[in-house]
């Protein structure tokens, strides 16, 4: 395939390693598990330092208020209080955080503590350091803050009306970003289609994957060296460094980040850099290490939430045979009060413009807005799941309104297996997949025919049965160049990760990586691929746990986020292991007096392929290079280090700012899910009777770990669809701010999840794997689809991602009311 200008649009073919196989692809038990099962993990709250003080943040009870004064004198007078820090001081000590938005939103002045004004409930306005956590909390109650409450706006669309209060005066409005994404010719399609389906409004609600471990950090500004040590659970440390460094005048060489075990992240722990900045300033002021452990309440009101998005005026051109030509929509994304990873969400969704479908004409008029709510962060499935949910709603609504079978309509419109690699209307390349086969498999898993029979049999029983389908994508390995689509001045492009594989003095194989895992099993999978390449067992490979900027290796993109470890992280490990292999072979050949081509590595030995008895253990190689150097021939001594670093770099180019086209992600894992639900006619209560997930992610390195990620992502989607939703009142008060009332899904809420098997290796990655783990939000589409399938004839369409009993009750009653259904069809 080629672009209009005739250039090839695919990536160069990647040579895939032939060495993988003995260990990769097997469900090797995890190296991490022993310490975690025995309570020997080292999470951030488990760490301490001599002379440390404990931090408590004073937070705004108002969603929008001018800060008239902050008086810390009574607090500071308490014995055992070491120091305080206020917004006023921060205004002098900190430069506003770097903004990725172009002007005017790029003029936003964001600080680690509120300066002059608080813009969401829970925003930190001061912090207190004391000898114990209890004392810090008590003393914080003595900080006197005088507020002058201001008008509040919580609606992501009303906020751009002229009468709405403006959050950031320096911007002049509450628009964070606006742009038109226009691919193909949607006007032509709407004119020539046999039917146009119009949907008034769809709403994707606000929730968070709420890791079980909250945010925390132990920070020490060393007065002697000027180095600031951040031991934290931030999951993207080099991104954090990019914000913290310029804000408080620290070079990257003066910031040390580390984490060992992180109790879940899901993207929510990426934007903790604001807190890390406050802690650094407090540590410098107090001359002590400072420790902060966020409470669950703090986490829910003021860490980060997922993006809320409203879709208006959706128009879908459909041909009489069911071919959907595309759609047009106005999207309003509510970023909350500050842009801390945003407005990247305004482009990230465009990695999946047509979803799993062959839509050619898509126009999205995209506006990102600011409201008096907690700032958003890149929550699992970030920005794509909102768009993919929209698409699946469109497909279901089209099927229902035009009397197409939902299964057949999907199969007709899916990108077909023989069309991969497939170029989307905006120039992204879907690497591989087989969506129709996945749909067949998932329907078999839920016994589709049987479920339809149950549905018929249930008629009139008061329990309505519905069957739902959701097909989504988990695009992985970002091209950070897409940031230039939202701001052409941004200096980022491509992606990458670094690893070092070395042979230690006694022949140990040691691996360090720039990633910061939160339960994804990097120690295990990195050991698997290393073992394959070096001809040893994963037990012989020591993968250093966690992130450590000083001791490990890193690049600017290092961290664990955005479904990419299997490609970038393992790509780096494989490259480094290959380099080490080359060196081991070189030394071995020299010691055995053989040609390099005669050498093989097996069972931790270097040996002659033709005579396995002639073998040297790894310790022999290491000992020669490190401790017996006088015997080493000079040319080897000069060229061999046994300490090999490799940076994996995907073959990206810079996307085009003007046309908003480019290759935005390297791999496209896919999901097709199905559910059978029961809806109680009387109460609106939804019960999942059966749930199945078929996820495809290329070649799997460790199938059990992959299945675990599928389970986890599915549970998050089910939780959000039925139980989890942040509810703000009109004053901007978060109404459910503890785990009492923000109902994180329990073992009774998440059903057994059946999983299927399918493998479509990626032609673009060195191991055929695709990044996965975010899951694309398939359950959100699936549950909405199932509920709609259960509703009586004439009911309003399912218009929200969150469908608690109350909302479903209203949908059930809407049929009898015979009012507007939120949809309209114009046929020619």
């Amino acid at each position, binding site marked *: 395939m080629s672009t209009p200008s005739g250039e090839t649009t695919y990536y160069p073919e990647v040579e895939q390693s032939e060495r993988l196989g003995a260990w990769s692809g097997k469900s090797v038990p995890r190296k991490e598990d022993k310490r975690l099962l*025995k309570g*020997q993990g080292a999470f951030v709250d488990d760490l301490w330092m001599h002379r440390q003080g404990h931090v408590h943040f004073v937070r705004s009870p108002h969603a929008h208020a001018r800060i008239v004064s902050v008086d810390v004198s009574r607090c500071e007078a308490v014995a055992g209080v070491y120091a305080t820090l206020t917004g006023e001081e921060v205004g002098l000590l900190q430069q506003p955080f770097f903004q990725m938005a172009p002007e005017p939103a790029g003029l936003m002045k964001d600080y680690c503590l509120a300066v002059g004004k608080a813009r969401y409930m829970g925003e930190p306005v001061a912090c207190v350091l004391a000898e114990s956590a209890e004392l810090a909390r008590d003393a914080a109650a003595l900080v006197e803050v005088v507020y002058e409450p201001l008008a509040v706006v919580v609606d992501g669309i009303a906020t751009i009306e002229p009468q709405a209060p403006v959050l950031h005066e320096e911007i002049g409005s509450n628009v964070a970003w606006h742009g038109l994404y226009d691919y193909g010719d949607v006007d032509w399609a709407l004119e020539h289609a046999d039917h146009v389906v119009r949907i008034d409004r769809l709403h994707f609600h606000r929730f968070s994957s709420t890791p079980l471990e909250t945010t925390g950090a132990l920070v020490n500004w060393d007065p002697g060296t000027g180095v600031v040590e951040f031991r934290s659970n931030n999951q993207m440390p080099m991104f954090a460094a990019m914000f913290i460094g310029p804000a408080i005048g620290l070079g990257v060489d003066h910031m040390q980040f580390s984490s060992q075990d992180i109790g879940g992240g899901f993207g929510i722990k990426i934007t903790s850099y604001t807190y890390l900045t406050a802690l650094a300033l407090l540590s410098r002021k107090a001359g002590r290490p400072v420790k902060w452990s966020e409470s669950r309440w703090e986490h829910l009101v003021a860490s980060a939430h997922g993006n809320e998005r409203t879709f208006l005026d959706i128009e879908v051109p459909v041909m009489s045979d069911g071919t959907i030509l595309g759609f047009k929509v106005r999207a309003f994304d509510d970023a909350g009060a500050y842009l801390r990873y945003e407005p990247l969400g305004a482009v990230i969704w465009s990695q999946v413009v047509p979803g799993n479908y062959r839509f050619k004409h898509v126009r999205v008029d995209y506006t990102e807005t600011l409201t008096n709510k907690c700032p958003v962060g890149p929550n699992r499935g970030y920005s794509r799941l909102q768009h993919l949910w929209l698409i699946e709603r469109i497909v279901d609504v089209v099927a229902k309104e035009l009397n197409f079978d939902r299964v057949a309509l999907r199969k007709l419109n899916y990108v077909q297996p023989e069309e991969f690699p497939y170029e989307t209307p905006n120039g992204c390349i879907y690497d591989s997949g087989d969506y129709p086969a996945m749909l067949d498999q998932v329907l078999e898993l839920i016994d589709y025919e049987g479920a339809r029979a149950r549905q018929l049999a249930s008629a009139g029983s008061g329990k309505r049965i519905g069957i739902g389908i959701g097909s989504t994508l988990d695009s992985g390995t970002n091209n950070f160049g897409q940031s230039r689509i939202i701001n052409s001045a941004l200096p980022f492009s491509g992606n990458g990760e670094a690893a070092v594989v070395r042979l230690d003095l006694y022949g140990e194989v040691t691996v360090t990586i720039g990633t910061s895992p939160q339960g994804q099993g990097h120690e295990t999978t990195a050991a698997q691929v290393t073992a394959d390449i070096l001809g040893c067992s994963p037990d012989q490979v020591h993968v250093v746990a966690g992130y450590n900027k000083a001791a490990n290796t890193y690049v600017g993109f290092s961290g664990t986020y955005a479904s990419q470890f299997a490609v970038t992280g393992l790509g780096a490990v494989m490259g480094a292991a290959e380099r080490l292999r080359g060196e081991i072979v070189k030394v071995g050949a020299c010691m055995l007096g053989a040609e390099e081509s005669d050498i093989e590595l097996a069972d931790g030995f270097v040996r002659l392929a033709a005579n396995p008895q002639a073998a040297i253990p790894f310790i022999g190689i290491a000992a020669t290079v490190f401790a017996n150097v006088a015997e080493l021939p000079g040319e080897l001594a000069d060229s061999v280090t046994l300490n090999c670093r490799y940076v994996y770099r995907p073959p990206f180019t810079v996307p085009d700012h003007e046309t908003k086209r480019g290759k935005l992600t390297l791999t496209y894992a896919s999901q097709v899910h199905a559910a059978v639900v029961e809806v109680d006619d009387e109460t609106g209560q939804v019960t999942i009777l059966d749930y199945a997930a078929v996820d495809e992610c290329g070649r799997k390195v460790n199938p059990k770990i992959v299945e675990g990620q599928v389970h986890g992502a599915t*549970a998050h989607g089910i939780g959000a669809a039925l139980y989890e939703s942040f509810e703000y009142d009109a004053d901007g008060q978060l109404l459910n701010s503890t785990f009492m009332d923000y109902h994180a899904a*329990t073992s009774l809420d998440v059903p057994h999840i059946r999983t299927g098997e399918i493998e479509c290796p990626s032609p673009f990655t060195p191991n055929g794997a695709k990044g996965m783990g975010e899951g694309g939000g398939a359950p959100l589409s699936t549950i909405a689809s199932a509920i709609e399938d259960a509703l009586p004839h004439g009911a309003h369409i399912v218009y929200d991602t969150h469908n608690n009993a109350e909302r479903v009750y209203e949908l059930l009653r809407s049929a009898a009311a015979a009012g507007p259904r939120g949809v309209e069809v114009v046929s020619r």
Partner: protein
Amino acid sequence: MATEGAAVHVIDVTVNGVPHSTAVPARRLLEHFIRETLGLRGTHIGCDTGNCGACSVICDGQLIKSCMMLAVQADGCEIETIESLGDGPDGLDPIQQAFKEHHGLQCGYCTPGIVLNAKTLLAENPHPSEAEIRRALKGNICRCTGYVNIVRSIEAAAGAQGE
């Protein structure tokens, strides 16, 4: 204000078989006593409202949430934490082994609480059904696994016990 609740009481409590006679402030939660005073960091904190179960320990044979109890209330009690399981610093007991084999954990933050939950469940009901396991787990939130492999691990541990 800062001195309120600072009254100190001496409590006698046995933790993982080791008796402690310790002065604790009246306001100190059992979970902080275990983590901070005794330095046993395997007991975690996920919510402080009794909802998540990360702080679960066994008190006189019963599974409790240590954030819901003051240390002074544990006076005279026998407490078991995750550190009591498995043989020595490297050994895994059969429940822990089953979690490892069936990938019953990801980040591991909920894991100590869930393993102790499984231990008390299997002590009372050696062959629980899936529904019984799920009911028993209701008070222990896991954000990573979707519970599927936790249920599998407990089923496997029950099976191994029966052999």
